[in-house]
């Protein structure tokens, strides 16, 4: 026996209070007698308090209190319950791109599906099963259910996606679900990956029933399509590289064709040795547009035989300088004149108004921060104290650069970040929307020297240090020039007409301010669908179109995934088909559950009250009659 609500235990102190009340009443109450003459012979009590002998009323009240407190405690007694249950199963289905690989006349996915269906059909009538599909992320398709027909239907609705896989995450999800409600479940995994690639501990793997399918290695894939064209270059200056890899263990020949707007501009017949790679360069494009690389003939895995890219047309860009320093303007004029397609507009803080800007501009605020939001991407250099955007707390001199964000686009190709010339810098508190790009450190903590972030839907960069007179064009400060140019490049707004390149498996989030209402998207070769959330799951390679009343975008999704393309599998224990065993008869399981009986104590209290009332009524009537 136990209690479920120990927090009611302090109420037992009320019993002590009841005793105290009775003792007080006893002490306070005097019984009037006509004379004590007759009581002189009677021994007087010496220990008055200790000789507390409970009366019937006290016992009744104490019992009533105990019953009520007992009810509050939610007492229970353990009861053994016998239940008839079947087994529990968890099916983990790999639906990544490699499951599309052809094996003779069928595909790996259908092979796995066939095994899973056989397993489900062999379930006992009371067996419960859960279905988890795994591609780039796991998804719970069905919770534990005994509806095996529904489970088969859900299996039929699964299809492999053009994405990578994160099977270990799916298995961890299954392991987490396995021991819920104190019942064990057997986990069956259907995949083409071998156990050794999962990276899970051995003790977890040994509990899995692993159904591995597929062995074909017949795959030649476009491993990369890289287009080299910076924003200030026109299409004619662009150069494309197509990387083709032979994942087969024997030599393979194929034809690579590159199309520009569906017009073949490059064709190469080639042969690759086993597990070898070849790179093809394509240049001299005669116009902008969609660039498609395609391998023929088809092999076991078709999804990696095609890749997309976008060849952009150069558009004139404007750099708006807002500065009171004449020397900086002259330097930027020299820089902009050397960059094709970039023009400079110089303004002073007094003549600047946000209405002079458009979305495609880059604004450089030098020692000035406007009081209102700026409708363009902007670079702030050496912001003044008491500005509304970057809280300046102090000034520092002769700082050394100690840390920077490796891999950020702004720091690309900068090999000597620490060589930036810093004489004086503002010490700023980091705004919540910004991240540190370059930083130093003083006794007071980290000092951000360059910040990046996004505010009001526009990119923002801030340099806490000044560019310095003549520094930009000085050949001694090439690092500063590269940093500046990279920053301009990062701040260049995206051309809304140009498609966005994404990897299959990514989630595309709608830009801020774009609502999914009336927005529809068309997946590659698919049926148009409504966008019901703020994002679109990109799980197929090819071209996606998003069309709305105020927004439209095109996505080019490619799959460059070595793990998916390398479909060849060695013969090992995993590939042996696992026979489906006959269903076990339902088990009778006994387990203990708490049977609460607190409400009976409440009933007892009510009954006691009723008895007390009846007794009091009876006494009253008897007294009245006599």
């Amino acid at each position, binding site marked *: 026996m136990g209690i479920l609500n120990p927090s009611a235990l302090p109420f037992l102190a009320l019993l002590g209070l009841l005793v105290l009340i009775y003792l007080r009443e*006893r002490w306070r*109450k*005097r*019984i009037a007698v*006509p004379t*004590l003459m007759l009581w002189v012979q*009677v*021994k007087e009590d010496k220990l008055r308090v200790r000789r507390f*002998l409970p009366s019937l009323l006290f016992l009744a009240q104490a019992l009533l209190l105990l019953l009520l407190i007992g009810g509050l405690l939610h007492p229970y007694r353990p009861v053994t319950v016998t239940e008839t249950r079947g087994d529990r199963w968890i099916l983990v289905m790999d639906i990544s791109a490699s499951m599309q690989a052809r094996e003779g006349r069928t595909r790996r996915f259908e092979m796995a599906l066939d095994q899973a269906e056989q397993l489900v059909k062999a379930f006992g009538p009371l067996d419960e099963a859960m279905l988890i599909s795994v591609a780039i992320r796991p998804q719970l398709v069905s919770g534990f259910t005994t509806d095996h027909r529904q489970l088969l239907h859900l299996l039929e609705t699964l299809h492999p996606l053009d994405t990578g896989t994160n099977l270990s995450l799916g298995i961890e999800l299954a392991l987490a679900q396995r021991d819920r409600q104190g019942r064990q479940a057997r986990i069956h995994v259907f995949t083409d990956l071998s156990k050794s690639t999962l990276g899970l501990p051995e003790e977890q793997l040994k509990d899995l029933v692993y159904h591995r399918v597929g062995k074909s290695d017949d795959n030649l894939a476009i491993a990369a399509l890289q287009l080299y064209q910076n924003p200030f270059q026109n299409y004619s200056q662009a150069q494309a590289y197509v990387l083709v890899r032979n994942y087969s263990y024997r030599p393979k020949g194929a034809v690579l064709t590159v199309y520009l707007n569906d017009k073949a501009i490059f064709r190469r017949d080639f042969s690759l040795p086993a597990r070898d790679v070849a790179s093809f360069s394509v240049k001299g494009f005669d116009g902008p547009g969609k660039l498609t690389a395609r391998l023929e003939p088809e092999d076991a895995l078709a999804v990696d035989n095609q890749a997309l890219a976008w060849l952009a047309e150069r558009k004139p860009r404007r750099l708006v300088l807002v500065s009171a320093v004449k020397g900086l303007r002259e330097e930027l004029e020299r820089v902009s004149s050397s960059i094709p397609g970039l023009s400079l507009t110089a303004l002073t803080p007094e003549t600047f108004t946000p209405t002079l800007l458009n979305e495609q501009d880059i604004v450089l605020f030098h020692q000035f921060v406007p009081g209102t939001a700026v409708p363009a991407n902007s670079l702030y250099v050496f912001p003044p104290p008491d500005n509304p955007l970057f809280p300046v707390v102090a000034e520092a001199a002769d700082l050394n650069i100690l840390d920077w964000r490796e891999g950020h686009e702004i720091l690309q190709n900068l090999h000597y970040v620490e060589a930036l010339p810093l004489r004086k810098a503002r010490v700023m508190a980091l705004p919540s929307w910004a991240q540190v790009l370059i930083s130093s450190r003083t006794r007071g903590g980290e000092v951000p020297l360059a910040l990046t972030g996004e505010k009001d839907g526009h990119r923002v960069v801030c340099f806490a240090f000044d560019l310095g007179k003549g520094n930009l064009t000085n050949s001694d400060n090439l690092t500063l020039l590269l940093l500046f140019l990279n920053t301009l490049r990062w701040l260049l707004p995206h051309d809304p007409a140009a498609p966005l390149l994404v990897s299959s498996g990514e989630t595309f989030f709608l830009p801020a301010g774009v609502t999914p209402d009336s927005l529809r998207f068309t997946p590659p070769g698919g049926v148009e669908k409504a966008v019901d959330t703020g994002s679109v799951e990109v799980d197929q390679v090819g071209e996606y179109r998003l069309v709305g009343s105020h927004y439209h975008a095109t996505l080019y999704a490619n799959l460059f995934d070595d793990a998916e393309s390398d479909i060849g599998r060695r013969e090992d224990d995993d590939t042996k088909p696992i026979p489906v065993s006959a269903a076990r008869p339902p088990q009778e399981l006994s387990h203990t559950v708490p049977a609460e009986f607190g409400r009976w104590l409440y009933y007892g209290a009510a009954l006691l009250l009723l008895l007390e009332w009846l007794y009091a009524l009876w006494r009253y009537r008897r007294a009245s009659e006599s």
Partner: protein
Amino acid sequence: MVGARGVSIIDPVFLKNLDRLRVRVRAARGHRPGETPIPRISQQWGIEFESYKDYGPGDDFRYVDWNAVGRLDQMLVKTFTAEREIPFHLFLDTSASMGAPTIDHKFAFATDLVAAFSYVVLINNDTLRVVALSSPEKGQRPFLALSSLRHRSQFLRVPPFLERLTAAGKTYLRETVRAYIEQTKERGVAVVLSDFLTEPSQYEEALILLKARGYEVKAVHILGAAELDPTQLFRRGKLYDVEDQSERWISLTQANLQRYRDALQAHLDAVQGFCHRHQILYARVSTASRLLAVMTEEFPRAGLLTLR
């Protein structure tokens, strides 16, 4: 007037039961003619014929029985049993002890008894004085007395007088009785209703004083039901004396209960023994009894009342 048990003292049904009763008197008599026959005393007029006697000097010539003279040729005079008006004095103890314990309603029972007694006295055309013996403390009067009542029609003055009384103060039977008899010349029957829960000297001297002044004394000892059985009152607790406010912690164990009963019995025996020794009629009633039963059964059995 509604009595302690909810019985109306002036209820016609109840009073009808009292109509056939009268107080039994042995020697007391008044000077005025009345309706109470006085044994062993004869007179030449009356209702109940007693005997003849020879006519002697001083006898009223009008009372000679001429029929007897004619038959016997002898001068005979009829004698009748004397009937006198008896002066009754009902003394009611109003000390605080008569009001405790409250569950006994002892004082209310006593006032009911006084009212019933008054009715019996008045329907027999005797004179009555109701005397409330109070405590002469703090300058209060030692007693409150209702002026002499002579007729049944005056009975209605009794209940309002009794209703005004309360049980309070110490018991001063001796002092208050003395104060009364010093102011009253007419002797008669003194009925003392009390619980006699005081020092023996108090009630003994009071009764002796009445006896010595020529009263025919009758003592009615009133006991509360909870006094006889204190378990009705408490099991353990702090007892306090309503008259002197002293306290005593008592647990009513079997041994203590027996000690109490012994002490009570000794007290009762003492009061009763004293009365017997001094030819004082003694009657004991419990508040547990019904008033009608007391008046019609217990008091006649005790010799206090008799049928007319």
